[in-house]
């Protein structure tokens, strides 16, 4: 069975590490193929790596997550994007959904929260 390839977009190093740690617990299903620390980098990495799913922080320098989602979705409408953010306001959620996000996970979250949402997103296919 092919592992789902995941790109992590997150400016806080401890967050990247934690997500990698969590995904390590489901090594059989997920593989972290790379990470980016801002929106601009995320677009570049996406083109380069063509991951199955991108976890996307919303508040970053250079380019914010919403813009990055739009760009990625323009290029690859089928790309799965999971927004992971602390700004869990209805406005943010709407903006993310309008930009094309496929899933939404807000901080703080447990390993179970993360794996559940991923399972749901890939399960849709």
């Amino acid at each position, binding site marked *: 069975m092919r592992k789902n390839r995941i790109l992590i977009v997150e400016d806080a190093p401890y967050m990247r590490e934690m997500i990698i740690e969590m995904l390590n617990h489901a090594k059989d299903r997920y593989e972290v193929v790379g990470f980016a620390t801002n929106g601009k980098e995320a677009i570049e990495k996406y083109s380069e790596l063509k991951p199955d799913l991108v976890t996307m922080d919303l508040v970053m320098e250079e380019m914010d997550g919403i813009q990055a989602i739009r760009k990625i979705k323009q290029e690859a409408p089928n790309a799965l994007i999971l927004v992971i953010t*602390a700004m869990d306001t209805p406005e943010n959620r709407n903006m993310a959904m309008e930009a094309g996000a496929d899933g939404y996970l807000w*901080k703080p*979250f447990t390993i*179970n929260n993360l794996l559940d949402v991923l399972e749901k997103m890939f399960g849709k296919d």
Partner: protein
Amino acid sequence: MRERGKEKERDYFLKILDIIEETVFVIDRDLRILDLSKGCLNKFRNGVEREVAIGKRCYEGLWGLEAVCEGCPVSSVFEKGEVARTERSFSLSNGTNRYFDIEWIPVFDEHGEVTRVIGDIRDVTERKESEEKLAKIVDGLSISTIVINSEHNITHWNAAVESLTGLKREEVVGTDKQWLPFYPEKRPVMADLIVNKAPESEIKARYGDKYKKSSLIEGAYEALDFFPSLGKGGKWLLFTAAPLREPNGNIVGAIETLQDVTERKNAEEKLTKIVDGVNIPAFAINKEHKITHWNTAVESLTGLKREEVVGTDKQWLPFYLEKRPVMADLIVDKAPESEIKARYGDKYKKSSLIEGAYEALDFFPTMGEEGKWLLFTAAPLKGSNGDIIGAIETLQDVTERKNAEEQSKTIFEHVRTPLCLIEEDETITSVNKEFEALSGYSREEVGGKKWTEFVAPEDLEKVINHYYNWKKVESPCCDFKFVDRDGEIRDVKVCIVPIPGGKIKVASITDLTQLKREEELCAICEELKELDDMKRNFLNAAYHELRSPLTPIVGYASLLKCDELGDKQKDYVHNIEKYAEQLRAQINRMLELARIDGGEMEMTMEDVPIPEIVEGVVKSFKPLWNEKEQTINTLVPEGIEVRGDKLKIIAILTNLIVNAIKYTYEGGRINIMVEDRGEDIRVCVADTGIGIPEKHLPKIFERFYMVNTSLTRKSESLGLGLSIVKEYVKLHGGHIWATSELGKGSKFFFTLPKKENKG
């Protein structure tokens, strides 16, 4: 036989003479008295013996006077055998003058010769005297007067009637030509009808409705008629005829006076044309205060028709509740100004146009629906000799103008800007309340002051220069320092603008001191608002910063659990997770309130089905209340909906229901009731818990308020829950409150409008 018969006749005759009281005597051709009656002797000769008088010439025999027989018609009576008459006065021996009327009656013999004459004397002194008196009176009258006797002959025709008719008395006295100056052919004049004792029907037939019965003299009539043959173009005459009576009441003649009223009539007709022709309401009264004119405009102003009022003295009726003189009446009465002042106070003034006229402005509350303001002018009407013969009054309905004026006055008085009116000579005539407040002077004190007195000395030159040249300057406004009563100085801006149509100017004053203070306050407000925004932004950032570390805490704790752990370690991780969750919830609530305070809360309005929502919330907490063996009863009308933000309504219900579960003892009961109240719904969440002390009830919706600190730990909350609930209810336009009984439980009520409540 014949002789004897004659003798006998004579005897009878003498016997008669001897007893009768009439004054009769008999004379022969020599004018000597043959015999005379007892009356003669008694009246004229104090009972002298008949023999003394007989044989004497008649006047001597009668009165003992030397005969004065010139012009005596007796001789001709003997000649012609016709009755004659003598009327003359005699100076009697007792010194009195008497006037006698003697009728000479011839006595014929068998040959037809007059042998003797009987004289029948009547004393007419009294009649004569009254006739003379009348003549004197009549001749002295300035009013045209005619007197006729019972034979319809003219006896008097005075100088005034001569000049009125152009006929001299010599031409008419003694004739019956009284009709001549007045009518083209012979006909009775009013005096003739009086003498004839004509019935009123005949007078009516002759004069139609131009006559009336005199109210002063019994049996007299007066009439007003036009006589085309008199003067140039005819004359209007007012004539009155009255009977002349003897003491016994017999009519012996009539007196008729004629008054030339042509001028008055013409003036009246001219007046009629004027009064009826003008559009402004007008009426006229005569000297007797009777209304003579009442034009169409005054009819429509007062609602009274001319037929109802002309000829009456009801000029007061439309204006006052009870009879009183109107201005025209006062003019006719030549009332002194003091009386007009007493009646009209300072509402009247002398007319500047018409001499002797007055005008006044007054309010008449009984007129129209809400009363009327009338401007009325009354002027005298004068005859050619300058006498007042009436008055004309014009009225103008100025209610609308007055109302506009009152409106301006009200605005002037109540506008929140100090205002004053300035005369041409720069004195202040009136000020409003705000001006009084600004200046510290009462309006009575301000009146008559020059407005420049309020300018601080150092600014005076600048201000005078500005206003002296203000037409050349762009703005009618000028800033200066204003000195109030206490000498305190304020910065003001004054704009002086002329009022159109007058010489008065209005000055409006802006208190810049006040304005500056307000500006300062606004600046402070702005600053405070900025500070508040900063605080909120800071708190927002702080809450976010607080929350960020929670992510790895929660995340790693969950990772830790994936490893093999001892029981103790499992407990530790459980505690980390539990308190991290509490911290998260608390931070979220604080963030939510910060968002509400910042006005950032958006409402997603939709039709929210209440039964489903209540059911859902109760169900989702079933593990919680099952664990405490509690029962929850719901009573919700089927199908009830409100317009609201579904998530927030769920949050409200969740909060209240969770609280109810928390504070209710194990095995307790919770009731949820929803009531449809038409405009809104009322939801009640009632628990059977510990209850809340009454003094705490009003405060439970405040932020960071907890009833009992010991509960703080137990309920694991900082008390922000209910304040968020309250804000959510308020965002919907509803209310929330609570009642409680210690030890028995609490009831939380909230309302939600069914329709969206904007604002």
